[in-house]
């Protein structure tokens, strides 16, 4: 184990996979000469050369399409979105081509492609640079969607994504890049896609959260422990396919659930989680599933409004207290 930042863990994953497999290459804006807009690709150009670290013009649709074609024909591209907000420019290529090609061709072609970059709420960057893009993608059959919360997950999940034969949407976070944590050195350390993790065991209530929201939920859990409420924290890590088993298992134990998500609540991740819990574990619930979500508005710029739009630790605390009092316990 080494201690490193989330950014360094991603860089290490890319480097190890590029060393292991000559078919892996990186393509996107600023990934080469500039070493990445957020320095995730630092040093890769120097080690692997311009053939495998390809700087592109500013054309998300174009370089994503090129990545798809290259993936269909023997290569394993890692496409960098400078931020995931810009992936909307490539939405058609991702949804209509990458996600559907294997199915539409009757299994003839596959698209082993990773599209990665930061996404989710940033700090006062306003509506077009601060949004939770995973919602747009996890609805699409044929895509896998990953949101790694810790440096260890960032490394293990990115390596699995690169080795996966499907298009994987891998959304990091600007606000977590500097976060430090333990990361295994083993170049074959992998975390399988579709496997949730229980980050903290508890008995009274299950809180489902990922990325920045997980850290707020942790804060809340510590606070609640002082009040005698024992919180179990589940991080899905992969949103599609989702490890429903782990979440359901936790619900059967705690009988209460709060789902936290940064994005707008309407038809969000919490809606889906609440739905499958209702379908599979209705009789286990002692209270309705609570959701703590971003407000149903674009992200405002002003500091105070940004805070109102975002699920804060206080809002999580309030929601947990609500579900725990729901049957008078």
């Amino acid at each position: 184990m080494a201690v490193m930042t989330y950014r360094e863990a991603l860089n290490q994953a890319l480097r190890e996979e590029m060393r292991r497999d000559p078919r892996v290459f990186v393509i996107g804006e600023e990934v080469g000469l500039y070493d990445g807009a957020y320095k995730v690709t630092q040093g890769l150009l120097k080690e692997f050369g311009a053939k495998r670290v390809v700087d592109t013009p500013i054309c998300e649709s174009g370089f994503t399409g090129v990545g798809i074609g290259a993936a269909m024909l023997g290569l394993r591209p890692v496409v960098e979105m400078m931020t995931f907000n810009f992936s909307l420019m490539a939405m058609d290529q991702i949804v209509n081509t990458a996600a559907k090609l294997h199915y539409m061709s009757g299994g003839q072609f596959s698209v082993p492609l990773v599209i990665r970059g930061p996404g989710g709420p940033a700090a006062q960057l306003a509506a077009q640079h601060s949004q939770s893009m995973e919602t747009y993608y996890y609805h699409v059959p044929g895509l896998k969607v990953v949101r790694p919360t810790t440096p260890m997950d960032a490394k293990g999940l990115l390596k699995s994504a690169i080795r996966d034969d499907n298009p994987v949407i891998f959304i990091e976070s600007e606000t977590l890049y500097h976060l430090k944590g333990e990361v295994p050195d083993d170049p074959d350390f992998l975390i399988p896609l579709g496997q949730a993790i229980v980050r903290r065991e508890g008995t009274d209530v299950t809180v489902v959260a990922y990325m920045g929201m997980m850290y707020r939920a942790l804060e809340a859990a510590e606070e609640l422990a002082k009040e005698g409420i024992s919180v179990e924290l589940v991080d899905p890590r992969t949103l599609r396919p989702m490890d429903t088993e782990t979440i359901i298992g936790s619900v059967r134990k705690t009988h209460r659930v709060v789902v936290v998500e940064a994005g707008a609540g309407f038809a969000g991740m919490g809606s889906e989680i609440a739905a499958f819990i209702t379908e599979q574990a209705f009789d286990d619930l002692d209270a309705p599933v609570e959701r703590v979500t971003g407000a149903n508005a674009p992200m405002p710029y002003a500091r105070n409004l940004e805070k109102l739009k975002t699920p804060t630790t206080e809002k999580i605390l309030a929601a947990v207290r609500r579900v725990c009092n729901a049957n008078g316990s």
Partner: protein
Amino acid sequence: MTTQAIEPRMELEQHLHMYRQMAKIRAFEEQVNELYKGAKMPGLAHLYIGEEAVAVGVCEALRRDDFITSTHRGHGHCLAKGASVNRMFAELLGKEAGYCRGKGGSMHIADQDTGNLGANAIVGGSAGIATGAALSAKMRGSSQVAVCFFGDGALGQGLLYETMNMAALWKLPVVYVCENNLYGEYTPCGETIAGEILARARAFGIQAESVDGQDVQAVHATMRKLVERARRGEGPAFLECKTYRYYGHHVGDVNREYRTKEEEREWMTEHDPLQTLAQRLTAQKLADRSVFERIHTDVKAEVESGVQYALAAPYPEANEVDQDVYA
């Protein structure tokens, strides 16, 4: 198909082969129209009749392991690249024996064995795949070339210019083939295309040419030059083929009030790709009517047996519905 000078006899054989391919596409598409009119074919089909010389002239200049990407009007491209009539019909009828196990249909036929990376029903949508295939060929040092077919309508799409820009920057072995049939759906292309088409490609430093898309020999000769150039590593090219679709935008577009009957008649009688080639070879005394008649008889028989095969073939099993969502 080869870069060496072709002997006259081989050249004639190649021309007759191209005639056969065009005749096959026409017979196939006529059958598709019949199936549709007889309510035996579901969905929607965009017929290629009238444009046969483009697909055939282009694909004849390619190796089997070269790549093509196709469009909503794609049956001709698939057949010209070597797809089998049986499996094409099976796909159109949604049968398991089809190229995509009945899950793609008319607008999504792909055939890995012949380098057909698939038809894309999004106008301009396959420019990324074709350019990426060329990038892959270059990175792997494979000497393969990719061809991107698209209509004049796709000239309005940004993706095309994004990918042409990268193809030019990186000297990728890709040829962008614009099938300019004068209409995008029901709108004449004069209403949608500003300036000069070739100038758009030339602005990127891409070699650009225009050719009579009804003359298969001309398409083939020009394409061969552009493909070999790309194969030598000299970069991408753009080929505009001026052509015309005889039928409507799709099988249900029968009145075609957006264009005149005189215009249609002129293209069909003065610029028909099959007649043009047959007349030329006949005038040069290289072939006579019986040769062409035999070809038509052959391809009709192939198409007839293909459609019977597909009609009799089973639909996909129920469990196919969520098979192949993930690799």
